């Protein structure tokens, strides 16, 4: 069906708290993957769970046809999380060599939120973790609404998608919102890439 130059497969769990904007990360990756002529499946969660509860999306991209919309346990190559405790919730899905790219700032809307130091200790046990205070970084750089794209920039290497392809996807996804929005998100992507190094 597609012209694909190289073999690739990346299974991604996107997660966070309802309303944090994980679906716009998914939209950019989906756009980029489609422009690369890759196969895509992306299972989202809508409805009741979006009201401040935990949310996740399974995003699968591959040079070969994909059967299941859902990722198998131990099958994810990357977890991209807008919230550090939420990253831990999906560890059963992460493969042994998988990456966790997460925001380090807790989103506390429950009374029994654990100690953040304990969460950091759990994250530190994993082989490949990038934790960034994306909200702060976004504020410091005057792009407060693009924190999620910083996270995407930090995940770029783990995703195995070319940087330029993600940039182009941002242009087409945000294009109708005007140049200022596009530039803010391009800047966010670059900040994320730097922060990951």
């Amino acid at each position, binding site marked *: 069906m597609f012209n694909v130059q190289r073999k690739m497969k990346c299974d991604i769990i996107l997660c966070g708290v309802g309303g944090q904007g994980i679906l716009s990360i998914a939209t950019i990756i989906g756009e980029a993957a489609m422009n690369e002529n890759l196969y895509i499946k992306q299972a989202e969660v809508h409805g009741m769970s979006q*009201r401040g509860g935990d949310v996740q999306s399974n995003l699968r991209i591959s040079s070969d046809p994909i059967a*299941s919309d859902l990722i198998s346990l131990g099958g994810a190559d990357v977890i991209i999380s807008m919230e550090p405790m939420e990253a831990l919730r999906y560890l059963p899905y992460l493969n042994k060599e998988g990456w966790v790219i997460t925001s380090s700032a807790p989103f506390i809307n429950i009374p029994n939120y654990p100690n953040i130091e304990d969460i950091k200790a759990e994250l530190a046990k994993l082989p490949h973790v990038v934790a960034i205070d994306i909200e702060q970084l976004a504020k410091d750089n005057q792009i407060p609404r693009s924190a999620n794209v910083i996270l995407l920039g930090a995940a770029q290497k783990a995703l195995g998608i070319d940087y330029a392809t993600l940039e182009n996807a941002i242009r087409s996804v945000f294009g109708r919102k005007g140049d200022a929005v596009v530039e803010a998100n391009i800047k966010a992507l670059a900040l994320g890439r730097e922060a990951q190094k």
Partner: protein
Amino acid sequence: MEKKLLLGDEAIALGALHAGLSGVYAYPGTPSTEITEFIQLNPLAKERNVHSRWCTNEKTAMEAALGMSFMGKRALVCMKHVGMNVCADPFVNSGMTGVNGGVVVLVADDPSMHSSQDEQDSRFYGKFAMIPTFEPSSQQEAYDMMEVAFDYSEKQCLPVLMRVTTRMAHSRAVVKVKDEARKENEMNYNAVAANWVLLPANARKRNDKVTAQQAQLEEDAANSPYNRLKLSGKAPLGIIASGIAYNYVKESGVDVPILKISQYPLPKKLVRQLLDSCEKVMVVEEGQPFIEEQVRGVFESQNILGRLTGELPRTGELTPDSVAAALNAQLSENPKKLEIPEIPALVAARPPQLCQGCGHRDVYTALNEVLKEYENPRVFGDIGCYTLGFLPPYRAIHSCVDMGASITMAKGASDAGQWPAVAIIGDSTFTHSGMTGLLDAVNEKANITVIISDNFTTAMTGGQDSAGTNKFEAICLGLGVEPEHLHVVVPLPKNMPEIIRIIREEINYKGVSVIIPQRECIQTFKRHAKERKQNS
């Protein structure tokens, strides 16, 4: 051919538009809502003036679609699985009347109840209404099958039920779509009154006709390109997989004889061919054991495996893991167990909750304040965001059964002697199924207090228009609620003393009182503020 990244729901919507759709009729319900929303925003649909306004409930939707079909045009009805219960009367009887223009009834089931109160499987409705049923297994099939379904509906003069599940409705994939849409049907007067007037004498004839038609429908299913039998000589295990479950079987990578089912009535001929060449057959289907029960029959064959025999989980959604484990257990001597890390113990549950600034919060705060004065108050809840009032910190409701049940259950409880009996229902749920119950209560002067918590939208499903906006006082008065026991308040912390006083007084009134707290949903409020900013 163009490639588009589409949700299953969007693929369905576009497939219907490209098949010459003239109207979609629906009430919002997860996971079916995005179908109608897609059509509402689609340029072609706008250009053609395709009907897409939300209906008051699934029954009015189904009946309006039948009206459009009666006039020769193609109509789509969309709903979530429990919506089928609401429109069951016109749906089942549409199997008797048949159709003129094509009708597709799209129902999105929600196994594992991500956003629902049960996991009923809509394929059973298709079977007992004797209506052919389609079950696509991919977004591409969903798009392609829509045109096939409309054509088939007109060819057989019957509606077609198309069933999807959450993972199809809410999952995106690349779909190849046509460049051009078919023309809409012209209006015509071909509908035969004798078919549509279901007087017993007419209905009996129709019943004989449709019953006789079933053999042809099954034959068509056996020859359907969407039902595929792949045999490979004699085998110890074969698989019957339907809809999205077929993908989990493919994902597992097992290579055994397989019958993929995406069109019903169940083609017994193909099932028999598979059974003849396999020692055992596992039935892998999303939802309830619909195929499995038919294949097992009353003889309870030991060679049919599935949800009924415990190889697959009896309830809940299938996953690639549960399907792979079930297949491996049959196919390998020593199935290896994958070592899966546990979720760290410190991870706390994060349940959904009412938004900060939501008016329902103020309503529950006031209600709880009054009800703590009583020993045994009972609050009958309903379907919507405010069902979350069951959870801490409010713990405010004692029931939530189906759309509209708050008012009628409060009335029944009052009939039994309960006081205070309070009903809390949202604006959209009230017009969907609450108004008739309120009339019952008014007619009997039931001793209940009804709170219609009006946020000007159908909030739970993402903020769709609500049928009764700005009409609630008039509706209540029209149903006979006494003007002095009908109150409109604005649920804000600053108005708390007034709201508390009104609730207290009306609980003490021996008759039907209605209190309508009115304040826009905080989510749609934010969205509207953003739109205003963008437009200015």
